[in-house]
């Protein structure tokens, strides 16, 4: 497996470069963007002297390059912030403190990660069941009623924006039928049952959005494998159709699905902003939306870099999974 290790190391090097460029880009973007974070942090009744003081505390009076270099140093060594009354230590890797409430960005992100992870992993299970199931049905039993209903369902789900699907689901199941609570996040460690009930609608909303893609990919990939010569070989040797499909066709059809899934999961870890906002889930996506609105630069940079890391890692993971699933592929 030295090949895989070397490959991962190279990928990691590439990822660091991507993340570095990303951080520069976000910094520049906020420098030119309108809105004064000091004014926002200071509050509505704020005189010129207070504003100047806040600006000093936030380090906004320094030139951009110095601020950026401080930020990079903080990532490695951690930083100390004076709050006027005392010193606040932000341990490495330090993305800075939120302008809004002086909390370390890493702590803010860590607090929200479980929410986003719950949403991403749960909806992944649903979209795989729905998407792969539909795809298999349409490859193996073309034209059945179940297959048609599912295909229409997944296509509709993909074609409809999240806030419409989500709102419709909310109105139907929470308001009209009152089968489900209006979602509010309950940690898994506290009450697994409530966790699942509360997340069911967000999961479904995301799964409907993603599943058509999986249905399509599974279908084409299965049909492609079924047309391959080795399937003919096993049929010609009297293997029951069930074994031919279960052991040989699916084995060949699933690697691309696995790879796509890894990439999607990475993207989801960046937070499904619309879904989180719509259902009021305190995840990373919601945090990011809120921080952009309040020009909370350290949080935005931290969140964007966190999302970037997730996406880059997921892509590398997709490659590794593909190579593990298909031994003919070597990673270089």
């Amino acid at each position, binding site marked *: 497996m030295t090949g895989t290790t070397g490959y991962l190391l190279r990928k990691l090097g590439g990822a660091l470069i991507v993340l570095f460029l990303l951080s520069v880009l976000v910094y520049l973007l906020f420098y030119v963007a309108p809105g004064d974070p000091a004014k926002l942090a200071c509050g509505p009744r704020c005189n010129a002297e207070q504003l100047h003081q806040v600006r000093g505390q936030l380090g906004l009076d320094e030139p951009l390059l110095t601020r950026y270099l401080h930020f990079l140093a903080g990532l490695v060594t951690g930083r100390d912030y004076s709050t006027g009354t005392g010193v606040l230590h932000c341990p490495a890797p330090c993305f800075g403190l939120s302008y809004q409430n002086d909390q370390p960005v890493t702590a803010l992100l860590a607090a929200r990660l479980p929410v986003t992870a719950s949403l991403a992993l749960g909806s992944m299970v649903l979209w795989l069941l729905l998407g792969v199931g539909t795809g298999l049905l349409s490859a193996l039993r073309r034209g059945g009623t179940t297959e048609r209903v599912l295909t229409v369902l997944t296509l509709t789900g993909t074609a409809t924006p999240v806030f419409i699907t989500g709102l419709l689901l909310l109105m139907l199941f929470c308001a009209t039928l009152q089968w489900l609570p209006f979602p509010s996040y309950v940690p898994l460690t506290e009450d697994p049952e409530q966790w699942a009930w509360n997340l069911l609608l967000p999961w479904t909303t995301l799964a409907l959005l993603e599943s058509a893609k999986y249905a399509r990919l599974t279908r084409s990939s299965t049909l492609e494998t079924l047309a391959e*010569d080795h399937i003919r*070989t096993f*049929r010609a040797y*009297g293997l029951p159709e069930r074994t031919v499909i279960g052991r040989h066709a699916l084995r*060949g059809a699933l690697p691309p699905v696995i790879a796509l899934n890894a990439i999607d999961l990475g993207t989801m870890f960046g937070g499904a902003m619309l879904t989180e906002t719509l259902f009021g889930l305190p995840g990373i996506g919601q945090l990011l939306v809120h921080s952009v609105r309040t020009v909370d630069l350290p949080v935005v940079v931290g969140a964007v870099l966190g999302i970037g890391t997730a996406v880059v890692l997921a892509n590398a993971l997709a490659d590794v999974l593909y190579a593990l699933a298909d*031994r003919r592929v070597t990673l270089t």
Partner: protein
Amino acid sequence: MTGTLVEVTDLAVTFPAGDDPAGRAGVRAVDGISFSLAPGRALGIVGESGSGKSTVAAALLDLHRGTGARVEGTVRVDGHDVLAAPEAELRRLRGGTAAMIFQDPLSALDPYHAIGDQIAEVHRVHRPDASRRTARARAVAALDRVGIADAARRARSRPHEFSGGMRQRALLAMALACEPRLLIADEPTTALDVTVQAQILDLLHELRTETGTGLILVTHDLGVVAGGVDEVLVMRAGRAVEHGPVGEVLGSPAAPYTRELLAAVPRVDAVRPRPAVPAPRTPGPPAGEPPLLEAVGLRREFGPRRARTTAVDDVSLTVRAGETLGLVGESGSGKTTLGRMLVRLLDPTAGTLRYRGREIGSLGERALRPIRREVQMVFQDPASSLNPRRTIGESVADPLRAAGGQDGPAIVRRARELLERVGLDPDWYHRHPHELSGGQRQRVGIARALAPGPRLLVCDEPVSALDVTTQAQVMELLGELRRELGLSLVFIAHDLAVVRAVSDRVAVMRSGRIVEEGPVDSVYEDPQHPYTQGLLAAVPVLDPQAAADRRVLRAAA
């Protein structure tokens, strides 16, 4: 054991016509085929592509069931009425009574599972009482029997870790795993090198005499049936053209089509006059003039630094004006890499390449342009080397446009002339490649290579994807062009007989090096290098008696 093992009566197979749901007439791929086979005997079914031979083979196991094809007539295998058998009976029959050995061993095995597991799986389907362990042992034994060295370990390999010949052996092992009474081999050696082909055919023969199974051998290659079967059935367009003992069909064929087929087969021993017009052996170039193309110490490496492989290693050769240099070798010998370097599609890693005395091996793209016009390449697979979305006329016109200096109408006129020159109707200018047969597509490939007005054509396996009769026609065309246009050819092929028919001189390649080189007749009649001798000994011959003698010789060697 009396009676018959296989009894086929009035077999007809019709494939539905395209997307037409009414299923108009459909395509009648097989039409009224009847034959029978006694236990332990062997029948060869021979025909060109589209003759329906593989369709007949598939019908023996009713592999057409569920595909929408209409199968009529009766097929009896070992007492079972195959076409009427219920699913369960058919599954027992497939592999248990009659086992199929497929063509193209690359894709006939599941890439995701170990080879031994796949054989064991098939074994257990037919011997449900066998434990996993016995089935595995059985798979290893079968692999060992077909000559896979270190079978216990190699059984754990996946198909891509095997060479083509080993995969074909593995497929044979799978067929043997359930001790069937009938083996059906569909082009079992088509993708293989001659030496490996000879090994597989010898093995097939050995297994048959050892176990007494019947054999149906489907192939396009008359040389393959000559040594391996008792009877031959020649098919054309779905019908039987001739059927009889192998010696009679090949020795004194009754049907004109069989005679035509036999005449088209290029002979490595050149007993008969060559099918390609015997080219006038061009005298050497005027004294003092450098050879047209000269390579000295050419070398080409591939891959990253640590995993470097050398595809071509220290190759020197010359091509004189008007002559044809044949380049033979088995797959992986580096002949294609060498050919691509000669036209500078690949850059040599080391060595020099001179065209009419001028060094071109390291020339930049711009300086190379005028020479590109004079040195052209004809590719192996005309289906994939022509752009499917462009008409054939446009494909031929492309190099003319690239050369510049002519207006649109003049280019079209020239492209039509070229199409006509290679024996195509100039009005086909607007046709797309998929509307043409393989031979016609290769003619387009040749027309495109001729467009810039080259002096040298490097042909990489130009006829290996074609049927024998088409092959003979294309070779004849190349001979004609060469004489009329004074072209020089580098003719790359794995088929020794084809190379002999067109070449003045021949170079034999092995593992990136030229092991022997000389005038074609002296190399073929009196090969000096043991590798050349082995290659020539492995070429299948058309005389059944000679084929049997050769097999004995090979077994003794």
